């Protein structure tokens, strides 16, 4: 348990011991289970087949101790793909001190483990009823950066102001997080190499504005920087180095077996817009990431730094046809490198599959509420490229289909 999480636990203990709270705690929760039909490519599984490898369970507590001080926490169990264990983890556990509170201005700080307020959906990306479908749009909220972005051990300073122009919300975040899976390794190397990307330093801010003149419009901009290094990387003796050089002379794409250093610095710029018109909700987000890979070493020999620009965007429409039914459609694209959109350069350089470097998808779906708490969501997506597949399973990346279909049914409950 790191220091900020220990601190928030201490604050919570102190707050409870005073007994001076004004409100009772409230509890909420959710559970979901998906059935995935993916016969062309593996999806949350090792092989192209049907699977049930997507399941979420969350329990949330919220407690207003005083007008200014609030405690909140969420335990989350998420099974997503054959790699992930579903052991429960603390998704957030925080103390919220709302130190300035007036009719038109509110400002405060949240300390502990906090959700990362990135874009429109990141903070609730694992909450079934808060998503516009089975998933948050994968072009912007892709799986391989999920752990780096989902939460921060540290803090967030927030400010919200209402004026004649509109409502302005600003969040500043600083802290670190830990990656438990090998998704980043699979994203970069398409295999689990020696060493791991574990500790991530994160900093950023988000600005959201709702103009008074058009209250159904929300505009947002998020800037984030995430930095991570390959830890516990392989080391080689001079003799092993020599043997490694011989192998690489014959097949340079074997370099993934000899990586001794790798640093990733990702700077993200995310533009968001959402407009509500009667029963319709239109959403679009555009993500640009400048990815700098530095301190690259193969067999302890430094390599040149590399830069790439990732781009993802989606356009989405939701129609809330009735109290029970909603329908949605989304078109989205993701390119891991905008200067190598079809991934051919990546394939030549690394021996990896070019298809993993981009994705284009058209998704149609429907959600039906059996009761206000129970819902079933079904969606079909037609995909080109395999960037949405990478990272969650031990897949044979050499034999992926370029064009593939995916059908998912998801049952969810919340209270």
């Amino acid at each position: 348990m790191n220091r900020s999480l220990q601190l928030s636990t201490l604050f919570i203990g102190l707050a409870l011991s005073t007994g001076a709270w004004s409100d009772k705690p409230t509890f909420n929760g959710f559970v979901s289970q998906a059935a995935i039909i993916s016969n062309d490519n593996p999806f949350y599984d090792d092989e192209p087949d049907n699977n049930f490898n997507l399941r979420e369970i969350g329990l949330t507590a919220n407690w207003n101790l005083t007008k200014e001080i609030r405690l909140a926490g969420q335990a989350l169990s998420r099974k997503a793909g054959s790699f992930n264990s579903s052991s429960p983890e603390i998704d957030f556990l925080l103390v919220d001190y709302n130190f300035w509170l007036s009719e038109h201005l509110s400002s405060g700080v949240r300390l502990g483990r906090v959700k990362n307020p990135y874009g429109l959906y990141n903070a609730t990306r694992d909450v079934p009823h808060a998503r516009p479908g089975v998933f948050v749009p994968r072009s912007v909220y892709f799986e391989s950066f999920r752990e780096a972005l989902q939460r921060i051990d540290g803090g967030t300073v927030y400010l919200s102001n209402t004026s004649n122009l509109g409502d302005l919300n600003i969040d500043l975040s600083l802290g670190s997080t830990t990656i438990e899976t090998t998704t980043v390794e699979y994203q970069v190397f398409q295999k689990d190499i020696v060493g791991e990307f574990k500790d991530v330093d994160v900093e950023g801010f988000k600005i959201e504005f709702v103009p008074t003149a058009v209250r159904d419009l929300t505009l947002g901009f998020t800037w984030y920087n995430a930095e991570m290094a390959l830890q516990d990387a392989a080391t080689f003796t001079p003799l092993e180095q020599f043997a490694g050089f011989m192998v690489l002379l014959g097949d340079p794409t074997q370099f993934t077996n000899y990586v001794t250093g790798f640093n990733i610095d990702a700077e993200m710029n995310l533009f968001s817009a959402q407009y509500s018109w009667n029963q319709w909700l239109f959403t679009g987000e555009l993500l640009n990431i400048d990815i700098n890979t530095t301190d690259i070493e193969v067999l302890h020999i430094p390599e040149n730094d590399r830069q790439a620009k990732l781009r993802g965007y989606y356009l989405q429409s939701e129609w809330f046809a009735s109290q029970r039914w909603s329908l949605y459609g989304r078109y989205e694209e993701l390119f891991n490198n905008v200067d190598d959109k079809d991934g051919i350069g990546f394939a030549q350089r690394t021996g990896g599959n070019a298809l993993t470097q981009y994705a284009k998808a058209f998704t149609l779906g429907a959600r039906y509420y059996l009761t206000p708490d129970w819902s079933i969501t079904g969606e079909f997506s037609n995909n080109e490229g395999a960037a949405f597949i990478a990272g969650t399973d031990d897949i044979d990346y050499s034999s992926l289909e370029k064009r593939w279909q995916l059908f998912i049914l998801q049952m969810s409950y919340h209270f």
Partner: protein
Amino acid sequence: MAWLSPLAPACASPVVIHHPQLASEDFSTTSLVRIYAMQKRVWSDRSSIKVFTLPKDSGTHKEFVKGLLLMQPYQLDRLWHRLVFSGTGSTPEEVSSPEEMIEKVRSTPGSIGYIDSKFLGAVDQRMYEVAQ
């Protein structure tokens, strides 16, 4: 502020009720939206706002959201989900009936709620805005 407020109409429709001591507060649509989105958390004297709602599947709730907040129920649902499941806020307290709503709002300082106007006969006149 009565001319800006959701007034008590002649036919049955949702009407805002509030604690008797809040008559001078701002109950304009903009203010109501911010209160029900849980963004405005204190009144002009910085005392806490306590927000009550009827069940989501009740007709009065749907009419209140559409008619007085000028929003769709799904928008408010998403806002509340985002608050509670991201750890950034609290959601209103749900009451089960108009009778409970009237009693809770009457007895809880700083509180606000809504009922169908056909129940206004049972409500203290200081608890709602009357058309001039």
